[in-house]
């Protein structure tokens, strides 16, 4: 109990410190290029509504100054009784990568700069091209220790191609599997984050508070699906490419030194719209919905199709299901 009061006191003192700093809030610390107000910003989950609004006003001003756009930055909370789930049909996926680029357009990732080769395009979705099967029978007459036959078929996360670029997809002998954040129910990334900068929201989406992340990249090491990306330099984002419809925990413009990843288009899904990747898939391979609603698309998939998850044995309990017809 003594601890409680002390913690309260210190929190008040910290809040007091923040309030005291407000007059100098716009002073910019050189080199790391943050304002004092941003420096003293609290963790998102500890901010009151007014503090959140103040932060949003500051961000909107920043984007207006830097990019000349009028952004809306929402803080829409999760809906009751909703846990989002995703289903992807790898029988239908043709590996066209329209989802990858729809995601980039929607979520304000850093783009590749035409003049600066140190700025690359961040893509949250990675499509794997996997050979349908490969058969090399063993040599006849040889004893088993000298020559194994090789028959490889199935979802192969060890040997696949990320940089495929044929004339047309799908190719005859390949199938395709896009991977993005699996929004695990037991996320290893949340467990290892030393500052609680990433956490699971009540509607199941794993989010990152970009202003709290210290950039230690422990979560990049802990993710079994290679779903997280890091801003190695200042993002390059031409003004025309910005999507002004943002959510604080989702697609607002990030800064260098922080982690980002798929958030199931939190700016869309919390307003009841489909994620960008679901809408753009030309063959309808992607399905999205509320896992708690028995009538939702994704529940129907779970009922009617045989689904599997990646790396089930790791116990991460992803909410991203793959299925085949």
């Amino acid at each position: 109990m003594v601890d409680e009061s002390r913690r309260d006191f210190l929190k008040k003192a910290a809040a007091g410190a923040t309030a005291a700093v407000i007059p100098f809030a716009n002073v910019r610390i050189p080199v790391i290029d943050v304002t004092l107000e941003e420096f003293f910003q609290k963790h998102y989950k500890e901010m009151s509504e007014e503090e959140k609004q103040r932060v949003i006003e500051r961000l909107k001003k920043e984007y207006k100054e830097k990019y000349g756009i009028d952004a809306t930055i929402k803080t829409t909370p999760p809906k009751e009784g909703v846990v989002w789930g995703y289903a992807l049909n790898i029988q239908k996926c043709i590996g066209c990568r329209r989802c990858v680029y729809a995601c980039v357009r929607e979520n304000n990732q850093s783009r590749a700069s035409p003049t600066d080769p140190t700025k690359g395009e961040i893509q949250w979705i990675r499509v794997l091209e996997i050979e349908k099967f490969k058969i090399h029978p063993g040599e006849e007459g040889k004893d088993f220790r000298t020559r194994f036959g090789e028959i490889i078929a199935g979802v192969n996360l060890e040997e696949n191609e990320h940089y495929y670029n044929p004339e047309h997809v799908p190719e005859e002998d390949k199938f395709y599997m896009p991977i993005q954040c699996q929004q695990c129910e037991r996320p290893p990334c949340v467990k290892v984050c030393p500052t609680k900068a990433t956490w699971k929201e009540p509607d199941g989406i794993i989010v990152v508070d970009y202003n709290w992340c210290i950039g230690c990249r422990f979560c990049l090491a802990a993710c079994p699906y290679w779903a997280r990306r890091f801003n190695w330099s200042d993002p390059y984002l031409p003004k025309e490419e910005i999507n002004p419809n943002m959510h604080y925990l989702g697609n607002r413009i990030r800064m260098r030194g922080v982690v980002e990843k798929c958030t199931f288009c939190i700016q869309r899904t919390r307003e009841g719209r489909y994620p960008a990747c679901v809408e753009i898939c030309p063959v309808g391979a992607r399905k999205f919905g509320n896992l708690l609603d028995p009538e939702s698309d994704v529940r129907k998939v779970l009922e009617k199709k045989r689904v599997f998850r990646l790396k089930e044995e790791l116990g991460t309990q992803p909410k991203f299901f793959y299925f085949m017809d």
Partner: protein
Amino acid sequence: MEARSDNLILQKALQEIERMKEVSVAKGLVILVILLSMFSIAHAKPEFAEKTGESCTVCHPNGPPELGPAGEYFKEHGTLEGYGELPTGEAEPGGRCNVCHAQFKPNPTPRDLSAAPREPNHRFEFNHGGGRFWCLTCHNPVDRDTLRLFNGSEIPFEEAPLLCSQCHGVIYEEWKEHIHGRWVGSIENPEPDVICTDCHNPHDPEFKPIEPEKPPEKPPASKEIPNYPVYSFIVLALSLLLAVYAAWR
């Protein structure tokens, strides 16, 4: 339109010939000229008229319609050879098919129409059913502005899913439950503003391979500071020299 005037000219010419049985040479020459001139523009006659002997008024009772791009091309070249892809004969709302088909008796013999000598409308690849289907499997022979179900009932083109579901029942059920095909809009009320035929060409339903988007880039290059290697070399050399001096006996 030349075709019609050709016909009329022919008719008139024949009438003339009938009337002028005892015709003078001059008149005969006129007739000859007229006949020759007919040959010179004979290649501009549509195959429809050639093969069937029917007149243009069969489909165009109200006079010549405006030329679309295919028509313009035809007017210029006299043939549709080299025009390129012809429209694949999707039904227009309001049903335009009956304008022609109401005039003919349906021919129930299953046959290949990909080289159809009739309208360019019907000249396309038909790849549905692996040889077991043909046009009148789905299209209603007595009313071409509707489709025909197995039990003989007629449905409009907008209700095509009912027809597709006869064979693709599982997919139809899945489509109704939103787990087949693309659904856009809101998650609560996704918009089904597409039906089967909006995505799948009923005459050649298999999706053709498309060009993929660019592959991801390799990770970006490291930021380099100008002259850094030189500075590093100097610092390392200095440091090493000092350390060696410190260690020297």
